[in-house]
């Protein structure tokens, strides 16, 4: 029995006069992996950033685990959430960025320990044990004392995944996690993500890795021009695209 982890209802987002999202609907069940495909500028990264309220949406609703993201609805009126409440919501949503965004002035271990210690104020010894276990899991047990600048891109991205997992999120967002990597380093990051999916983590993954989407994804959506053009099981969408736009895109990336 899957429950809804993410629900987006008719989401609109504009930057000034430029409308980037023009009514996105999406449901991601608990424990499912949803892959988002689309050409650059199609709004897929923006949509992902809306899910943890890094971008404010202009219309529609986004729910994560039943909670409205960024707002509170009371008496038919929307109230913007304060900084503290938004931060609270984000604690249970992990995010991994294209450019890793590790904190370069902290060691790998400190990167992972920072948020559980400072945000959740968990006991340091406990966090340390958990962080070491996380880093071991992503295959970086030997690099805990290094600074991010001393690691390869693939290693940095795996640290970034461990950093997000250390907050014990119920949902993980991946924003083109392998796009800034050397081709030979992509595999190690995808392997970690596959492991996560097998363990039942709910994931929304913006990616260009068609193979990953086909193998790991439960659901695939193809976006273009701020709308969802096509969605369904990855095998069907990739193997037998219904729309001209999807076919054109897939013929270029496959």
């Amino acid at each position, binding site marked *: 029995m899957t429950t809804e982890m993410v629900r987006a209802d008719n989401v609109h987002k504009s930057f000034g006069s430029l409308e980037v999202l023009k009514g996105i609907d999406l449901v991601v069940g608990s424990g499912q992996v949803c892959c988002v495909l689309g050409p650059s500028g199609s709004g897929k990264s923006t949509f992902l950033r809306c899910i*943890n309220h*890094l971008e404010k949406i202009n219309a529609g609703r986004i729910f994560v685990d039943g909670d409205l993201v960024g707002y509170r609805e009371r008496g038919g009126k929307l109230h913007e959430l304060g*900084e*503290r409440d938004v*931060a*609270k919501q*984000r*604690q249970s*949503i*992990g*995010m991994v*960025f294209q*450019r890793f*965004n*590790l*904190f*370069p*002035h*902290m*060691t790998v271990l400190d990167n992972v320990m*920072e*948020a559980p210690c*400072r*945000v*959740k104020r968990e006991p340091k010894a406990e966090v340390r044990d958990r962080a070491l276990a996380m880093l071991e899991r992503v295959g970086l047990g030997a*690099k805990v004392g*290094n*600074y*991010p*600048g*001393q*690691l*390869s*891109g*693939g*290693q940095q991205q795996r640290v*970034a995944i461990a*950093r*997000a997992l250390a*907050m014990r999120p119920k949902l993980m967002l991946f924003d083109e996690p392998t*796009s*800034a*990597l*050397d081709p*030979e*380093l992509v595999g190690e990051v995808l392997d970690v993500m596959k492991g996560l999916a097998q363990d039942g983590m709910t994931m929304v993954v913006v990616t260009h890795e068609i193979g990953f989407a086909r193998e790991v994804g439960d659901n695939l959506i193809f976006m273009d021009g701020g709308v969802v053009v096509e969605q369904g099981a990855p095998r069907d969408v990739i193997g037998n695209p219904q729309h001209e736009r999807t076919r054109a895109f897939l013929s270029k990336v496959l």
Partner: protein
Amino acid sequence: MSDNTTTERARPEAIKAVPVRHPGRWVALGVIAILTAMFVHLLVTNDRFRWSFIFLEYQDGKRGVMFTEPVLEGLRGTILLTVSSMAIGIGLGIVIAIMRLSSNRILSSVAFVYTWFFRAVPRLVLAVLFGNLNILWERIGFGLPFGTQIGKLFGLDGFDGQFYSIKASDLIAGFVAGMLALGLSEAAYMAEIVRAGIQSIDPGQAEAAVALGMSRGQVLRRIVLPQAMRVIVPPTGNEIIAMVKDTSLVAFVPVTFELWFQLQQVSARTFVVLPVIVAALIWYLILCTVLMVAQYFVERHFSKGYGAADKARQRLRDIQVEQGGRITRTGEGT
């Protein structure tokens, strides 16, 4: 394959070539050597420097002018003034920089007006102004704003709404006036330095921190400022060193508790001019040298994660990323 071929072939003889000659360098070296010799000769043989006046005894039974009690007192004053006005400058500067970067229009314009005013007014004029500020008010204290006017409104004549006040000439005079003039002016410059530092940090850093659930204050304290320090420290070192020297301006407040003023007093008493100036010069040299050494260690502290070798590697990687996402593999294969 290629490895095999290189090991089979004999390694050619190492290159031994006659290096390019640089006659210009030798000429320059000669000129510099002669000038240095002339300078040292001047220092040693010209007895108008009166080195014993500076170092040993400037009057019968007294120490050299550098080490006499009033001058040492002035030195303490200069150090204290530098430290306190820089503390005001850095603290207030950070606040103003954050205000300047705020999305609130009013806060950012207030910060802009502040930096505009204090950067436009010369420090010397500011020092004199602060020395005379007590002309404006007789007493300064805490209380209701517009207390007297409110009192009149309700027909209370003696009412001024003050809880606590002291005489203005006691509060803003001498040392405090000098400290405020230098500190407030410094805050304007520090604000610009801090702003540049904060803006130099990749917005992705703050984004990643916020996505982890950190508050805005935590992001600033834990993530942005520590990284911005690498950009902030070198110009701040400049500012501190400039401040050591600018403390001599407060002689016009007037503040007597200061190195240059005290040395001038000696000059006025003894009618000895040049050696006194040289003594001041030596003290300023010593103070600034200490500061430069301190700066070296502070810079080293804040460049954690950016070691010299790392830095080169990082730059290489950045260039490669910009040129199409190639990232050098380091450490793993070795």
